[in-house]
């Protein structure tokens, strides 16, 4: 079975192997120099007693909530609107997708410049013309995280728009026609035909967005390095620090496993809670 060789090799070495190894390492003490020691749940105890973890968990949840608030409704509405444009929607979707194509590092360095807290900073200049600001953006513990969310939403919205748009193009025209013959106005056609059709993909994207935003890393690392005063320290940034700054691989994998467990529980609860809605 020559053809199965590449996929088996790559998955064994770079996917299944590391997943198993991650679980094993979370109960070991290893720093690559001393021999590996089995330490049971010691890593978990260490991680859970680190006051930084609680703070990082709260920050991560705060980011996720803000990202849902900003980032979830806009792409849905935009895709619903674009699906009515027929032939011209390509221009709109191309524009909406440009931020997605922008490499995150480029986007972050550019936005860091836009977030210049001085009155002549880009955003402060724009807001200044209507008499607002200047705001400190990334420099203040209270506004740093919302600023990061704003950039992340800008960077990610286009992707969701395209996925919703693809789902909407599969709505059969006769459903709308039937609704129209039954006397449903535009608003009711949107509410009773378009939205129910999106329900499955909406629930799924909601879950994926939560899972994705819980793993926020590049933005806080490059925007703020976790500061000011730890206000943008996320779980993933902490894992990175554990592993690659402190060299404590056991603690890093223990925290990774905890995060993965939290995500798994979240997905399970979510699936259970929404099962009723999608089969109604």
């Amino acid at each position, binding site marked *: 079975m020559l053809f199965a060789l590449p996929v088996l090799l*790559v998955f064994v070495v*770079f996917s299944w192997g590391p997943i198993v190894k991650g679980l094993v390492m979370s109960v070991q003490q290893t720093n690559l120099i001393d021999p590996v020691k089995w330490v049971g749940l010691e890593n978990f105890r260490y991680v859970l007693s680190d006051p930084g973890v609680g703070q990082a968990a709260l920050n991560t949840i705060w980011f996720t909530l803000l990202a849902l608030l900003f980032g979830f409704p806009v792409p849905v509405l935009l895709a619903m609107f674009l699906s009515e444009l027929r032939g011209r929607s390509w221009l709109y979707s191309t524009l909406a997708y440009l931020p997605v194509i922008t490499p995150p590092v480029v986007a972050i360095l550019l936005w860091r410049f836009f977030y210049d807290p001085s009155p002549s900073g880009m955003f402060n200049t724009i807001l200044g013309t209507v008499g607002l600001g200047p705001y400190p953006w990334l420099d203040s513990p209270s506004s740093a995280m919302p600023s990061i969310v704003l950039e992340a939403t800008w960077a990610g919205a286009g992707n969701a728009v395209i996925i919703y748009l693809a789902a909407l193009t599969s709505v059969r025209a006769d459903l709308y026609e039937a609704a129209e013959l039954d006397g449903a106005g535009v608003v009711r056609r949107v509410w009773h035909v378009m939205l129910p059709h999106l329900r499955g993909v909406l629930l799924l994207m909601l879950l994926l967005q939560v899972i994705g935003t819980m793993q926020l890393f590049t933005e806080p690392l490059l925007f703020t390095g976790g500061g000011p005063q730890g206000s943008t320290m996320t779980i993933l940034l902490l894992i990175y620090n554990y592993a690659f700054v402190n060299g404590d691989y056991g603690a890093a994998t223990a925290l990774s496993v905890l995060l993965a467990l939290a995500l798994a529980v979240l997905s399970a609860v979510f699936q259970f809670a929404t099962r009723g809605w999608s089969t109604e």
Partner: protein
Amino acid sequence: MSGERGALSDADRRLGRVRVPFVVGQVVVLIGLLIAGLGPLLWLLKAAISPTQDSIRSPLAWFPSGQVQWGNLSTAWQQAHIGYYLGNTAMIAAGTALASLIVCTTAGYVLSVLRPRWGALLSAGILATLFVPHIVSLVPLYLTVLKVPVVHANLTNTFWAVWLPPAASAFNVLIVKRFFDGIPREYFEAARIDGAGSIRVFTSLVLPLSRPILGVVALLSIISSWKDYLWPLLVLTNPDLQPVSVALPKIAKVTELNIQLAGLFLALLIPVLLFLVFQRAFLRGVGLSGGIKA
């Protein structure tokens, strides 16, 4: 794009109370998207050829000092070595795409066409990885690359470290398998009756027929490796091998702002051009990914 109609019928579109807000909405949304999508790009182009002080003091003015510094671009390309780092990025992206293509076409062929008895098991194993968050394997994957099991090779500071891991993509395998599922089985039977072996069927029947989906896989993996930051930061510590995404934050620390912004512009140019040229394939690929996830 969509079928014959959406929620609005042709009759609705002629009604004043529907048409007026719809047209106004189109204009508003278009302006919003122009500002959000194209705005930063165009501003970056302007800032890339502006003196530093212009960008800092009045970022929105049109060349307030009257100077246009085209030289920023070549300074960034040569002195800040953006050209060199972009070369690395291109190497990394090309190798990633190639590795992904090899893995997902052969895997798709096994799962969709050859269908051995253990195919279901392999398929389940690949599918399962979709549900495991990447974070679980970040640290162990790094240690794996540091010392590959059995052969004990250290892949860090070689391009293999960035080429191979992304090839273990369940998503790519699945979309290719689905595409292969759509090829009529009669083709394979006919080829076998004509005496073609499984290698021959793969190279002269399956691959040529699946060019569109292979284009999508290649594009998506090129773009995602172009965007990647954390992984190359970890495994390519040798500055000579680093891609532009890893180099830019370092350059930003030691370079004057106008050169920095010129560097950002150069790093952005190629993905945007790639996207504009292959726009259809892209948007179709992203739509497909929604279909797989659903």
